[in-house]
């Protein structure tokens, strides 16, 4: 059988800000029918451009792309090509056309000119495949991100494609939404033989693929099965990528114990490898028990039993928060977890008085925000709030001017504005001299994100609240940003991080609060929170990869609960002790 997709010496150049950008410089790639291929690569490596060539959304400058036996340059086959290769994009909000779910799913079949009974049949089938039938009459904007993406997939499935291209389709989803979407795609691949091409920044999403293709500078730099590929950590790092967390641990253990298999990729595999490495006795207590919490200074910020309603006083009123309590002490990093729609974004908007508590109290710097005498501008200076995708809120042409907006609003003298802008830009790794006169829109995604954060830092807040600061960034930009946040904390800034990324929260935070269904359901140290996997899963969350390994070993009674771990460093230390126990020397 001929390959379903064939890309030959593909070149593509587009113009950005008047400059030609060579996105693809000679890509060769063949995909067989029924394959599951994951495309990796840092931002700007050309992977999205390549994806858009696969169904003739873009046409080659040089080289050829064949879908089935059709060349994408031939306009006669355009409809056939686009119904054979379906695409789902990153932002569900920007690809939904209709105002009702079933009409959205029908959009593609309508374009193919099918008759009404056939469209009806396909809509039913597609909605059933993504388990969204109960929502068929809903308006899309009332669905969660994960549900919206499932509707988008249904819209593509209704065209009965043979190839499904996912362009970072999981980037904006919460853990549950991501898990559901990946399971759905895996099912379509396995049961219906759909060919899948997934573009992603999440290394662990590459694990289930038949083949991983890494793009770099517009060429295929590396490709192979995931188990082989993730054995090349140096090569991956050179391509600005990283390893799935479990794989990183397996390789660290392999370096210490050469007999430990380095090619384990998932938490389950690593846990099994630890068990079978050699029969282990239940381990003795390995780590000292948790120390009692030292007495802390009074909190900078405190939410006490906060409740909030939207559309209050209308027939459409909904309760977003019913009972949220949270205390943030100076110098801490506090993580806030919760699925989409849990109320965590509503909760953090109480921190600087953007929203008013309809019940309960918000205290900032010893002032109760419900007191009408409180100077909210002072509160907003003390509590910096960085919204999701803050780069979409930039408005000035030059980076320096945008960062200066806050200090200028304060009416500070020029020299002070300049000093603050300099300090804020330095804190996020954008040197003032080099970046102040850069045009905002020419920065890379990661740089724009950091410039936007600098705009809040320029107010010199005592407390910085960040909503999903790393969402949508590639691995390198993500690592860089996290390091800078840690530096900020070391300089005395208190941080609140809202995130879906459990691994990130596990490695950064002193304390965690879980918000679900409008209330704080769990608070405590990461060790305490991650000791409640059933509660977390019930609310659509997941354990960090390391805690999953720890959980498995505990359930096999190989690890006492007191030795539970949740970060890579802890896992490495604990497992090294466990594997190196006297009795048998490894190797």
């Amino acid at each position, binding site marked *: 059988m001929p390959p379903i997709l064939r890309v030959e010496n593909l070149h593509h150049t587009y113009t950005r800000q008047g400059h030609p950008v060579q996105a693809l410089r000679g890509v060769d790639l063949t995909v067989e029918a029924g394959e599951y291929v994951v495309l990796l690569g840092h931002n700007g490596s050309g992977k999205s451009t390549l994806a858009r060539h696969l169904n003739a959304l873009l046409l080659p400058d040089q080289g050829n792309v064949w879908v089935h036996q059709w060349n994408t340059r031939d306009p006669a086959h355009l*409809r056939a090509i686009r119904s054979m290769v379906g695409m789902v994009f990153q932002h569900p909000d920007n690809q939904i*056309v209709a105002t009702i779910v079933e009409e959205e799913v029908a959009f593609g079949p*309508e374009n193919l000119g099918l008759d009404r009974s056939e469209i009806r049949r396909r809509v039913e089938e597609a909605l059933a495949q993504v388990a969204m039938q109960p929502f068929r009459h809903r*308006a899309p*904007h009332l669905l969660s991100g994960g549900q919206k993406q499932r509707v988008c997939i249904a819209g593509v499935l209704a065209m009965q494609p043979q190839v499904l291209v996912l362009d970072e389709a999981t980037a904006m989803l919460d853990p549950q939404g991501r898990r559901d979407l990946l399971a759905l795609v895996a099912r379509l691949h396995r049961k219906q033989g759909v060919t899948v091409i997934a573009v992603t920044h999440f290394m662990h999403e590459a694990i289930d693929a038949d083949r991983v293709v890494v793009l770099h500078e517009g060429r295929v730099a590396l490709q192979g099965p995931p188990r082989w590929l993730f054995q090349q950590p140096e090569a991956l790092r050179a391509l600005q990528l990283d390893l799935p967390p479990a794989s990183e641990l397996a390789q660290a253990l392999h370096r210490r114990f050469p007999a430990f298999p380095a090619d384990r990729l998932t938490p389950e595999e690593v846990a099994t490898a630890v068990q079978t490495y050699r029969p282990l006795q239940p381990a003795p207590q390995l780590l000292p028990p948790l120390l009692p919490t030292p007495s802390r200074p009074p909190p900078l910020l405190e939410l006490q039993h906060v409740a909030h309603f939207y559309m209050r006083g209308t027939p459409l009123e909904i309760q977003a928060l019913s009972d949220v309590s949270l205390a943030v002490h100076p110098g801490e990093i506090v993580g806030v977890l919760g699925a989409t729609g849990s109320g965590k974004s509503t909760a953090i908007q109480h921190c600087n008085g953007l929203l008013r508590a309809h019940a309960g109290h918000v205290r900032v710097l010893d002032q109760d925000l419900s007191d009408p005498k409180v100077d909210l501008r002072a509160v*907003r200076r003390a509590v910096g709030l960085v919204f999701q995708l803050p780069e979409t809120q930039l408005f000035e042409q030059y980076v320096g001017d945008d960062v200066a*907006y806050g200090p200028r609003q304060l009416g500070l003298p020029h020299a002070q504005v300049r000093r603050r802008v300099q300090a804020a830009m330095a804190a996020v790794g954008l040197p003032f001299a080099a970046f102040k006169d850069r045009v905002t829109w020419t920065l890379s995604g990661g740089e724009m994100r950091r410039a936007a954060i600098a705009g809040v830092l320029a107010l010199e807040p005592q407390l910085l609240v960040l909503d999903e600061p790393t969402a949508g960034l590639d691995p390198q930009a993500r690592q860089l940003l996290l390091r800078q946040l840690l530096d900020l904390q070391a300089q005395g800034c208190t941080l609140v991080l809202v995130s879906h990324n459990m691994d990130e929260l596990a490695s950064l935070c002193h304390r965690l609060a879980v918000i679900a269904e409008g209330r704080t359901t769990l608070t405590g140290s990461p060790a305490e929170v991650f000791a409640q996997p059933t509660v977390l899963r019930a609310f659509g969350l997941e354990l960090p990869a390391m805690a999953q390994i720890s959980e498995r070993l505990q359930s096999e009674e190989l690890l006492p609960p007191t030795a539970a771990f949740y970060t890579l460093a802890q896992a490495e230390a604990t497992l090294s002790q466990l594997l190196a126990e006297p009795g048998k020397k490894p190797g």
Partner: protein
Amino acid sequence: MSEFEFLRNVTVGQYLPTNSPVHRLDPRTKLLLTLLMVLAATSTASPLATLLLLGVLGGVTGLAKLDARYVLRGLLPVAPFLLFLMAMQLLFQGRFSLCSTVWYEWHFVRVTPCLLELVLLGALRLLLFLFVLSLLTLTTTAAYLLHGIEQLLGPLQRIGLPVHEFALANIIALRFIPTIAEELERVAKAQVSRGGEFGSEPWYRPDRVARARLPLLVPLFVNTLRRAEELVVAMQARSYLGSQGRSRFVELRLRPADWGALALGGALLLLVWGLA
């Protein structure tokens, strides 16, 4: 303290699902009945007939299981405009009055019984238009209204009017209203969090007002354009190549209830004409 909730006070154009018989009518029926109502109200000069029409609308409100107070509250924002209009008519329209009886005269102001009748009629008509439009949008989703318009105007496509494109563009606009409202709210909150303050500029300095609005409008424009670009790509990816060769999923069917409602509407129009 101000609260940031931009969608809360918009009731005109709001849809309230109560699954009433009125909600279940075909959108074409409701569009035609709305037209009949407007025709009836404009073709009669009798305040009595207009009051009768308002009464009928009250009945429809009940039939649609809507709270009359909620519907009327949506009309409140028009009240100042309405009062201004009535005042203007009272002041300047009297000179053209045909009545011979004059109740009050002062310079150019002349109040006559016919003038009062005219002012009252005008106010009632305006209320009626707003009332009937609110009822239409409260009981019909905007998407179905557009489907109805598309099918009613369908024959015009044949003489080259882009009816389908018009309907699709409007559906997309509707689809993005909540998205862009949310975006505006988020951008405003972000800028306020950065020390921005909107609305404190003096009104007589439009330059400063405009300058203060830039932090809201620039991101909104940029993001909307980006969304539009992404949407075009997503539509193309799903084989959208214009209305040519496209079929239609939504099926509108006129049921007996629709014919009955149209007949009642027609009868009402005749009754109003009879009263005149």
